[in-house]
């Protein structure tokens, strides 16, 4: 056992941090709001900067423009980006679709898409959830019917993050309605400019346009855009989710928020400075910092196991549950400390910490819900991790 980073890992974290010092605006606290044009421009600029330094897809193999970096390095990358609340992501492309294309994609698909993702030139979105298919994703209804050399898509996707900014979508569609739900699904790549696609904004409870409903009306997509085999999309698409599930972003956001809170409490100018010597406050902050460290170690454990060639499914679920839970608890406590000032919206002249904690707390509601609700994650931990029996099929 060894609980410290290698000199190479620490050095990389420092370099990335220095790059972010340069590229982020002075006094940047984030989080980025991708519906704002200035933040979106910053997102694109940082993507390019990361790509130029070989970091944007460093987890990828060298032959696809990556650096073959270790899972631990990738975790450090994700952690540092989240810790700074930095924009500059194409998580759908770099973390999910890229690795999936490497495994299941055709040579043409790899040539066409991997380079563009690696250079930070394209933005992807993920079309999985539907109005009637959330946790029960396999019940999805969006139809794709083969008509010669094209699939014709009809239906709707929902909760599609960044669909309004994306160039491309990878989506699950039903290609065989007459078989078991899992067996009639395929994964398609779709250009968002294809006629018949309509992106309808959904404003989230934090007041931000982060996700959308995407309606497909006779959208014609080349057959060559099928990833993997026809009707094998469940297997292909679930591989994506395995890449998606990690708690490191949340653990890092929690740590950043905790540090912000500790600084604020210690600052004599703050409206709540008198509470810094309150033993209850000290004790609560110490307890939360313990749980942040616990969540963080679970994420490192996942990375370490990946480095050993394992596919740590249960551990990844643990990290997601622990990360999202501790992040919301830190923000809850931040709001409690800020008291009446905590409920002032960003833009209020009297808001403390620019109203960030309120906005982040409202936003963080999505953590335990998205990418597999925490209840689903607990099913995975219980069944795949602990080997508990599944419920009998009705």
């Amino acid at each position, binding site marked *: *056992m060894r609980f410290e980073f290698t000199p190479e890992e620490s050095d990389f974290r420092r370099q990335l941090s220095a790059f972010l010092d340069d590229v982020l605006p002075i006094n940047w606290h984030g989080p980025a709001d991708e519906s704002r044009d200035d933040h979106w421009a910053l997102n694109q600029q940082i993507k390019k900067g990361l790509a130029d330094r070989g970091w944007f897809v460093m987890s990828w193999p060298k032959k696809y423009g990556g650096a073959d970096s270790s899972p631990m390095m990738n975790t450090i990358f994700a952690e540092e980006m989240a810790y700074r609340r930095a924009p500059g992501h194409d998580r759908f492309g770099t973390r999910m679709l890229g690795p999936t294309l490497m495994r299941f994609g055709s040579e043409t698909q790899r040539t066409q898409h991997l380079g563009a993702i690696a250079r930070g030139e394209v933005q992807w979105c993920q079309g999985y959830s539907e109005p009637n298919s959330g946790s029960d994703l396999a019940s999805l209804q969006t139809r794709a019917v083969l008509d010669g050399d094209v699939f014709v898509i009809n239906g709707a996707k929902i909760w599609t993050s960044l669909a309004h900014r994306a160039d491309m979508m990878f989506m699950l569609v039903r290609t065989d309605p007459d078989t078991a739900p899992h067996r009639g699904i395929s994964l398609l790549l779709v250009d968002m400019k294809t006629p018949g696609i309509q992106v309808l904004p959904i404003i989230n409870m934090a007041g931000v346009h982060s996700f959308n409903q995407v309606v497909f009306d006779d959208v014609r997509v080349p057959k060559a855009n099928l990833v993997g085999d026809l009707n094998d999309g469940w297997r292909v698409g679930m591989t994506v989710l395995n890449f998606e599930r990690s708690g490191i972003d949340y653990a890092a956001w929690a740590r950043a928020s905790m540090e912000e809170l500790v600084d604020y409490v210690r600052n004599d100018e703050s409206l709540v400075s008198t509470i810094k010597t309150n*033993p209850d406050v000290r004790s609560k902050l110490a307890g939360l910092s313990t749980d942040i460290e616990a969540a963080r170690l*679970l994420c490192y454990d996942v990375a370490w196991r990946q480095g050993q060639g394992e596919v740590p499914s249960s551990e990844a679920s643990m990290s997601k549950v622990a990360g999202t839970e501790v992040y919301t608890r830190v923000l809850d406590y931040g709001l409690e400390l800020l008291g009446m000032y905590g409920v002032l919206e960003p833009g209020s002249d009297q808001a403390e910490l620019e109203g960030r904690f309120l906005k982040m707390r409202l936003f963080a509601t999505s953590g335990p819900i998205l990418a597999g609700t925490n209840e689903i994650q607990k099913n995975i931990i219980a069944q795949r991790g602990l080997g*508990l029996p599944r*419920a009998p099929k009705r």
Partner: protein
Amino acid sequence: MDFGLTETQELIRSSAREFLADRSGPATVRAVAEGDAEAIASLWKDVVELGWPALTVPEEHGGAGLSFSDLAVLLEELGASLAPIPIVESAITSRILERYGPDAIKVELLPQIATGDVMVTPAIVERDASWEARSAAVVATRTGSSLVITGEKRFVSFADQATHALTLVRTDDDGPALVVVPIWKSPGVVQTPMKHASGVPVSSLNFNEVEVSPSNTVATGGEAVAATEELVAAGGVARAAQLAGLARAVVDSTVKYTSNRQQFGRPVGSFQAIQHHLAEMAVAAKQVNHLAHSAAWSFTREDYSVRRAAQAKIAASEKIPALCWTAHQCHGAIGFTWEHDLHLYTRRALAWKTDFGDPAFHKAILAGAMGL
């Protein structure tokens, strides 16, 4: 980062599992809890032969010179089996002797600790149950060529098995000191069992004008404060590692029980309500395990991380007793019986929650380390 075991650690784990399965089953744990001192003595004799008390004693003093991180692997197994033996007590006191004691004490005691001829248990806490280094009321008065010790220590583990107590005292100049006091058949030392929920012997020690040589002093003043803080930190991390092992055992047995127990024509473990209880237990167990090993790893020969030590004990103390209560809920009525072994784990977890500082104590330390 490396969450894997080294070859040495693999060996420690496998030999400990084999030995403890054979020698420290529930029957032994129950016998000791009911006051069978013979059972401890016989177990301790075998443990000495396995070389466990020598594990972390430096090689130059006749030990195996292994790290605290290696020790934590053993402690996990001791926790999982509820083994009623004073390895933690012996390991942390020998660390403090080695780090803070004068050479004469090291040369005399450490080799004997390694061979099991000497066992030193910490005697820190008094009537006010405080682990604070400056809280001692037991006095050590310089009289001629002797130190004369008077007062009562409480919550001393395995005092009956120990030859010496590493005792926190107040000196003539009102400062703290750590003194090695021989307690084995020592005139003036009266032991009284405290009937502790841990199921291992925990006593109060009454020192009635006990004379020791001033050369038994390990540290005084600021050094004694630092040594006591380190002792409590090390003890807390050791308990956290034991609690991690205990939690693993409780999760495993609860998975086994709920996978077999049938109601409504299916295993109760196939119900989501039970699965979510167990998933949360598994997350807590793993978190405590990682925090404990991360903290243990920080205990090098020269240093340790105050933060990590506090975090490990806070998490273990808060999460593992709670995990045990949830295990009782998953077991239903059978887990509420005296006959079922689950309460042995619950009692031990509750006892270890407060040993070497409860969550409030360690949160105060951690808050300080965070700059609050």
